[in-house]
């Protein structure tokens, strides 16, 4: 089976989520990659070095910048004439593009796979991860998105793939990128952070959320996450949200502070290696999944923890 992995990149860097997609694809067969965008020579070069990638297809064109699905999907669909599976990371970029590719190919996407059982059979979470479905695809070609926490990341070095320029298609002319309001942060990205400190509505305000959590995160070199309630309340930006429909994370340590543990939140973090919960309500569901729990007032506990670490 010949696979085509969508390489997600930004600022000339290949995103970590792509590396997990490469690992998933390698379980299906030969791994090819698609790098789309303008002036992506360096990205293509970096992609050839990823262990396991045989060939890198490069589609070069300004209309392919910012991963505009309207323009990228037809290029991918065309390349799929010579491939059997399209594999994208289950990031917002991958989730935007892959279903569009699937519909163009008239196949049903298999979303957020957790494992490859055989070349037609995969497992994937449903109902916020409260159930795992084993599904077999009857489509001749497959379109998959890959949950980054479920697969090891392929090594960025060690590969020796070749580069091939392909038809970049044309601008569909019906969508354009205006801009991105990027949340600036020196901290590690949530999906690749080793430690995450995450806050809930109990912080009470954006000021207190940051005044208490930021120093703790800095001390631990941790990423900062949030529950949906905290994001809805405006304490943290949208890309901090951990959960069923936000980011799925599995760090070495996840410290949930003032988060009760709704099933939608647990869906995003319950595969963390060690879960620490700090909450004033000892009945909070978060304690049912926590390895270490501490019942008490976060406004006292968090500063003390930051100081003593």
């Amino acid at each position, binding site marked *: 089976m010949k696979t085509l992995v969508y390489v997600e990149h930004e600022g000339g860097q290949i995103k970590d989520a792509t590396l997990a997609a490469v690992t998933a694809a390698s379980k299906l067969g030969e791994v090819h990659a698609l790098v789309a965008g303008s002036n992506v020579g360096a990205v293509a070069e970096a992609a050839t070095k990823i262990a396991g990638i045989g060939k890198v297809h490069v589609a070069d064109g300004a209309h392919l910048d910012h991963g505009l699905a309207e323009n990228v999907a037809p290029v991918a669909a065309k390349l799929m004439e010579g491939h059997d599976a399209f594999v994208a990371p289950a990031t917002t970029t991958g989730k*935007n593009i892959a*279903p569009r590719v699937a519909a163009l190919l008239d196949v*049903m996407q298999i979303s957020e796979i957790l494992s490859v059982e055989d070349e037609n059979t995969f497992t994937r979470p449903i109902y916020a991860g409260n159930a795992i479905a084993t599904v077999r695809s009857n489509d001749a070609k497959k379109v998959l998105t890959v949950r980054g926490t479920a697969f090891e990341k392929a090594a960025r070095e060690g590969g020796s793939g070749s580069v091939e320029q392909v038809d970049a298609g044309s601008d569909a002319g019906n*969508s354009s990128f205006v801009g991105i309001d990027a949340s600036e942060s020196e901290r590690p990205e949530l999906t690749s952070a080793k430690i995450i400190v995450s806050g809930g509505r109990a912080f009470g305000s954006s000021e207190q959320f940051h005044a208490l959590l930021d120093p703790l995160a800095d001390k631990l070199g941790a990423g900062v996450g949030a529950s949906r309630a905290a994001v809805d309340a405006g304490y943290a930006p949208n890309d901090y949200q951990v959960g069923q*429909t936000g980011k799925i994370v599995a760090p070495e340590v996840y410290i949930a502070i003032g988060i009760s543990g709704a099933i*939608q939140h647990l869906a995003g973090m*319950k595969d963390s290696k060690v879960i620490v919960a700090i909450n004033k309500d000892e009945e909070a569901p978060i304690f049912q999944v926590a390895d270490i729990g501490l019942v008490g007032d976060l406004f006292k506990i968090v500063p003390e*923890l930051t100081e003593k670490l």
Partner: protein
Amino acid sequence: MKVLVAVKRVIDYNVKPRVKMDGSGVDLTNVKMSMNPFDEIAVEEAIRLKEKGVATEIVVVSIGPAKAQETLRTALAMGADRAILVSTDEEVEPLGVAKILAKIAGEESPELIILGKQAIDDDNNATGQMLAALLGWPQGTFASKVEPSSGEVSVTREVDGGLETDKLKLPAVITTDLRLNEPRYASLPNIMKAKSKPLATKTPDEIGVDIGRRLEVLKVTEPAKRQAGDKVGSVDDLIGKLKTLGVVA
């Protein structure tokens, strides 16, 4: 402009799903069902566009069992104008749903189609994108802000790195994210009024779409359960535990 909104009847957001003993799926007998929360946001957004004088008519569509009528009535009570139920007892995959919606879009000629970004039961996050592909329309997925102006719509999207803004030419497909709006509750008078709003019923056959499944569900299992660990009594004990686990030096 005419706005088409798609809604799905799913397990209620607050219910903890239970896997059936025989591994055939999730047990939905006697479980509270509601409108998919993201679809509620889609309905709300359409209504707000109508209140602003941008939308002229809101047509709400659901593909599902006869009981999905209740979901459509909820949308009508919130403020949609009329409803179409595509009635089937089969579980229709996003590809099949997208094909049905594409056909309906062909008949109804909306300028905007709004859908939830994902259904909280099968968690696919695919229907809107597939629909846009089938229609050859642009897509604004995971929207937290939607601002139509003459012939186009500006969509702010919740992406991994922050908030991205794209401009799409109409007609377009939008999928909603959580921060787009807070859906209203239908008032009792509006619930009564909704009972007399038009609701048409069709079948996938009548529409001419093959909804045969492409994915076969071989089994559904419960995920590995985490065991609750220990509670500690103080910050010092917590740090001690973290040290034992090698988490902090």
